[in-house]
């Protein structure tokens, strides 16, 4: 490790080991961690889920869950070991000397207290010198709200969290964290729950404040692109260990660790947008064709178009990506195409057939050739079922083949999604997220579907797993001539897999075209904003050089 504990260090962690549970079931979450932070330094802690990055950050602020056990090591803040402090002493340090910006702004504010009272609470918890009067408190709260760029702070003070958007909530939380000008700030995936355009503005506010106030920051993230955008130094973690700890530019130029290299490759990889899809003849019937598709919710005053006159076509054997932020209507569009939701207006054609009003037997037939893969691999498979039973369920329902033939088909499908045949006997609960997603794809293909709708199918997976599933999808497309409608908010992934891209905003399709066209020369302002907000400017720069 290249860290040298210097006298001027603000935070000095050495030999820290943490496990969860005890006895045979103990899981090592952090192993012999050494880490130092200078005052005012911004360090990004990067790793996949289970790498121990969150555990480490929670240990620093003393918020480990009860099942966690610190086996050894020390955490020194300004020379005093936090691990030897009592709970009461820690409480006086938290909020005053160490602040925290949490992961999920939606659930991180008390829903039944006003925004103002939750900010002023910090001052009431840590009275300094004289007690602030109500008026002084109020002025202080307003000043903080202005500091994080919230307009009309006088009104916001008396509002409840549910009246604020996600981005505003995160700003309030940032205001709380910076209220007492702490020396150290722990930010645990502070923007992963936000839309990309919101993420950018929040990150700007956050880094600006940290730089201005000279606050040292530990920024925990799974997203290497975000890390490179804001940090001075990057610490890569895997399996509870630090793999690499170096300044951003060095790590980008010459990564030493193999795992870091893999993460970097994935973060910079871009699709070959010029690739030609297989099996594209001169005259082709679109795999999916929608025209004027509309979904209106509510009635009268509350009427709102979730999807507004959307038209596009998915060429057979290609991938069409529908991109947009949350609430843009992309999933609603997918559900209407799947016939899971009745459109208010418009038509849906699948492989040339109008299925807008298909029901009963027609709908059953439709689902033989058109299948959906869900975002969340945890809920997509019945937890009581074995893998083979999950994959053969559609075969049984449509009475395809004999028992032996079905077993053969399951083996064939497992092979197609690169899972070993022995997995057929495992229960759905025993699989990892990536494996579950493969099983879900196998099930979707069981009846020979030619078109898949992938609704954020990669979003719940880690970066490297994402890359594997992406490769699998590409293989399947080439080998079986599949067409994909790929729904995603992640431009990086979209760039890698798409032939065509459509951009949605507030229910409308604002731009549609080939991937090269939309991603390189966007015509709509919104697409440009999306592309600009996409983190990883530095990464892209490095990749092109």
């Amino acid at each position, binding site marked *: 490790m290249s860290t040298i504990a210097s006298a001027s260090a603000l935070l000095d962690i050495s030999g820290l080991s943490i496990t*969860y549970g005890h006895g045979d079931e103990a899981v090592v979450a952090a192993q012999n961690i050494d880490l130092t932070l200078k005052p005012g330094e911004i360090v990004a802690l990067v790793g996949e889920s289970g790498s121990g990055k969150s555990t480490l950050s929670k240990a620093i602020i003393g918020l480990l869950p009860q099942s966690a056990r610190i086996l050894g090591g020390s955490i020194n803040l300004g020379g005093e070991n936090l691990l030897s402090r009592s709970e009461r002493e820690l409480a006086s340090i938290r909020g005053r000397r160490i602040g925290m910006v949490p992961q999920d702004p939606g659930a991180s504010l008390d829903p039944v207290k006003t925004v103002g009272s939750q900010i002023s609470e910090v001052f009431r918890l840590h009275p300094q010198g004289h007690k602030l009067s109500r008026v002084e408190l109020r002025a202080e709260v307003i000043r903080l709200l202005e500091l994080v760029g919230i307009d009309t702070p006088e009104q916001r003070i008396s509002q409840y969290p549910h009246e604020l958007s996600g981005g505003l909530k995160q700003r309030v939380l940032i205001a709380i964290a910076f209220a007492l000008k702490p020396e150290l700030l722990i930010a645990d995936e502070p923007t992963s729950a936000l839309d990309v355009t919101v993420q950018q503005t929040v990150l700007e506010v956050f880094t600006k404040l940290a730089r201005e106030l000279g606050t040292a920051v530990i920024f925990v993230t799974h997203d290497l692109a975000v890390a490179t955008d804001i940090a001075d130094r990057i610490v890569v973690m895997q399996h509870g260990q630090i793999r690499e700890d170096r300044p951003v530019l060095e790590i980008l130029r010459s990564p030493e660790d193999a795992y870091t290299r893999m993460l970097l490759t994935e973060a910079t990889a871009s699709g070959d947008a010029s690739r030609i899809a297989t099996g594209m003849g001169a005259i082709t019937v679109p795999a999916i064709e929608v025209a004027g598709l509309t979904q209106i919710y509510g009635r009268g005053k509350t009427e709102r178009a979730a999807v507004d006159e959307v038209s596009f076509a998915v060429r057979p054997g290609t991938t069409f990506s529908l991109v947009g932020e949350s609430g843009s209507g992309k999933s609603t569009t997918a559900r209407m195409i799947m016939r899971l939701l009745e459109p208010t207006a418009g038509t849906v054609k699948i492989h040339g057939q109008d299925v807008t009003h298909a029901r009963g037997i027609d709908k059953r037939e439709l689902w033989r050739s058109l299948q959906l893969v869900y975002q969340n691999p945890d809920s997509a498979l019945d937890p*009581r079922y074995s893998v083979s039973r999950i994959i053969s*369920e*559609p075969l049984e*329902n449509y009475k395809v083949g004999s028992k032996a033939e079905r077993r053969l088909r399951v083996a064939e499908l497992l092979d197609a999604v690169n899972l070993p045949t022995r997995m057929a006997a495992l229960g759905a609960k025993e699989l990892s997220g990536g494996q579950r997603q493969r099983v879900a794809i196998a099930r979707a293909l069981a009846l020979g579907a030619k078109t898949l709708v992938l609704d954020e199918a990669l979003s719940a997976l880690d970066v490297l797993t994402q890359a594997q599933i992406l490769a699998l999808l590409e293989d399947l497309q080439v080998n079986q001539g599949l067409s994909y409608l790929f729904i995603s908010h992640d431009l990086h992934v979209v760039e890698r897999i798409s032939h065509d891209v459509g951009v949605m905003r507030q229910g409308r399709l604002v731009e549609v075209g080939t991937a090269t066209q939309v991603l390189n020369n966007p015509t709509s302002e919104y697409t440009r904003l999306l592309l600009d907000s996409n983190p990883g400017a530095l990464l892209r720069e490095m990749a092109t050089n």
Partner: protein
Amino acid sequence: MSIKLEEPLLQTLGGGADPGPNNGTAQGHAAKPKQRAIRSVSFWLTCAPLIVVVGWALFPSLFSGYDPISGVPAQKFQGPGLEHWFGTDHLGRDVFARVVHGTSQTLLTAGLAVCIGLVVGTGLGLLAATAGRAADAVTMRLIDVLLAVPGFLISLIIVTAYAPGPISLGVGVGIASIASFARVVRSEVLRVRSLDYVEAAFMNGGTYWSVVFKHILPNSCGPVLALLAVDLGVAILAISGLGFLGFGSPPPTPEWGLLIAEGRQYLASAWWLTTLPGIVIVLVVVLLAGLGRQLHKIFRF
């Protein structure tokens, strides 16, 4: 008025110190919770005494050699001891024998009540959860009514109009437990139904009934099973309470509530007549509640 009880009810079932389902950080260890739970010591510590109690109900004479109905007057009012574990009553009858022989009466009545609650409640809950908005609204109001009229009074109407006895009690207490079953079934079915794999099952060619039976019901059975155990305990309490008031089987039939009511006259001289049968009731109900918690854990998907 609309009472949103699904949560609280399930919460009560979830019980005390159990950790939540989703705090397992390690996936590998969560693999086979069912087998682990069945092998666990606490599961058998809960089940073993309950099995003994069921034994009392089925073969009472195996557990006590004394006659529960006719006693030996010479041995009346003997305190608890090796010969008579729970002592003897004013007629010289062995109290332990009367508790053992009363088990079948109490369990059968409670069982009848729970069956009524389970069958009608599950039906109503399924209807509310799967048959659309109108059916849901109507069923939920119906359940509100069932909650609004205490089971105690429902039992009393039936007892008043017919005659005191186990059937009247069982039906009354059973009607009272319909509401809790209906609520648990409804909320569980709603929860499971919104999961992706249920929708996927439809897209993979499942029909309404095949999906209900293959995916929805099996995955929502855990809390219902748990409620079954807990509700049996609640029914035992309600029935012994009504028995205590004299609305159950007439004497000399041994029934747990009635036993305590009889002992009440001798409160000053023979404490064991009321205290010891009561401890049996408390233990059985506590164990049933514990069993409910364990079942809830085992069948959580």
